[in-house]
């Protein structure tokens, strides 16, 4: 279980971005999250991935309190894949950041072996996003935060990626927090959908 208890955050001396936020995600569950721009959804995503530290409250993943030592079992997939891969590395090296990856995972994500030799600039956005997913879905990953994962992709690629992800998380019992502005997409892929405004100060 991924448990967020009374987490608050603010940037330096600015007013609180969100206060007393509570959220629970179970393994194998897909939770949708939507809300206005600038309310702190991406900030929450980075906190859950262990990239930022909350100012108040605590987070537990499968009973372990943050900060996590060693491999971070909550992994984040960003909106813009081209901004989160080293442009000067071949894809093989980019993938190696995720640890020892199962070759079957690459096949499931539709990653062509030939692409491993390419640089990020030689792949399309959809292809790059598959690599980012593969990198995030290492063997120890328990939860995935998909922050506008397919917003920049066309409808066909979006459907391809979500179908694969849903299949994988079922197999491996991974929990997902899907952040998106598209209500149709959330309705299609999620078990339950939450409005970000309602998270604050409530228990879910």
């Amino acid at each position: 279980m991924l448990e967020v208890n009374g987490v608050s955050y603010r940037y330096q001396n600015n007013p609180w971005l969100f206060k007393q936020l509570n959220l629970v995600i179970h393994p194998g569950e897909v939770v949708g999250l939507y809300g206005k721009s600038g309310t702190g959804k991406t900030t929450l995503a980075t906190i859950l991935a262990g990239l930022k530290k909350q100012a108040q409250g605590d987070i537990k993943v499968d009973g372990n309190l943050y900060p996590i030592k060693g491999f971070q079992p909550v992994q984040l997939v960003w909106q813009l894949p081209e901004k989160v891969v080293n442009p000067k590395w071949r894809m093989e090296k980019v993938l190696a950041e995720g640890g020892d990856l199962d070759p079957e995972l690459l096949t499931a994500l539709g990653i062509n072996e030939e692409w491993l030799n390419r640089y990020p600039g030689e792949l399309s956005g959809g292809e790059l996003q598959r690599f980012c997913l593969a990198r995030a879905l290492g063997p120890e990953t328990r939860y995935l935060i998909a922050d506008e994962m397919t917003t920049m992709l066309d409808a066909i690629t979006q459907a391809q990626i979500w179908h694969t992800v849903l299949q994988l998380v079922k197999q491996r019992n991974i929990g997902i927090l899907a952040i998106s502005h598209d209500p149709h997409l959330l309705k299609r892929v999620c078990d339950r959908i939450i409005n970000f405004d309602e998270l604050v100060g409530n228990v879910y």
Partner: protein
Amino acid sequence: MMDINQVEKSDHTLPNSLIKDKTPLFEVNHLSLTFRQYKKGLRESSTQVIRDFSLKIHQGEIVAVVGASGSGKSLLADAILGILPENADVKGDLKFAGEELTMEKQMLLRGKDISLIPQSTNALDPLMKAGKQVQSVIKRKNKKSIQERIFHKVGLSKKAGEMYPFELSGGMARRVLVSTAMVSEAKLVIADEPTPGLDEHARNETIHYIKQLADGGKSIMFITHDITAALEVADKVAVFYAGETVEIANIDDFTGKGENLRHPYTRALWNALPQNDFIPLKGSQPLPGETINGCAFESRCPIAVEYCAQKPPQNKSVSGGIVRCFHA
């Protein structure tokens, strides 16, 4: 600067000629774009990014160009504005107001008769106040009052005009970019992916502004991968696949299971939407530079037959639209 007179002259002759013979304001025929690159040492290679693109836009019309990321959509905008890097070879006819759009003409018209709403709000000058940036486009007197009136129209306060780009939120920066297009004298506005990543409210607003631009008589080329957004504002949709226009469809054709659509790719795109059937078509589009002898969509097409892989289909008119498919 010395060419301003020339621009103004063409301004006066434009509307009449348009009304008379319904010449499209902007026309592209068989546009292709190739990049020359050095591989190892001095060995040169060329990569074709756009193979065959044709499109017509009439005055006051919104034409959406819809295609996958990496299909060369944004390069299309650059090709029209003539701001591609030196190693790009552009072939094909571009016509603006019935006249050939040469390199010299592009230089003259861009930012004046043809304007761009860029994809990224990074395009704003970080060292100039938002209001000043919009004023710099206005060629008449009373720049400040014009700018304030436009800001009011798009829902920006007077205070926003005194702010630097870093002080604006993403949505506000987007509105500043749109105001720039609104105050300009441009007849053709190219909007490059203006909607993704915006929340529903900001997205609907942006779409509304684009509609306002068209209602004011401007022609819009709306480049997007978001087919839902395209269907909300556009008069026509040009579907772009692997560097080619595979179909030009009317808005009403997008209904049901896509029975009225002419090209199998357009149909697959429509049926992949989460609000429709969310069907993932297998495979990915050919990469730029891959040699394609037949139809670009053949490898993924559910209705392809042997000859589809052998020779490329040509454009043909079918029930009020244009399609590049043997089976239509």
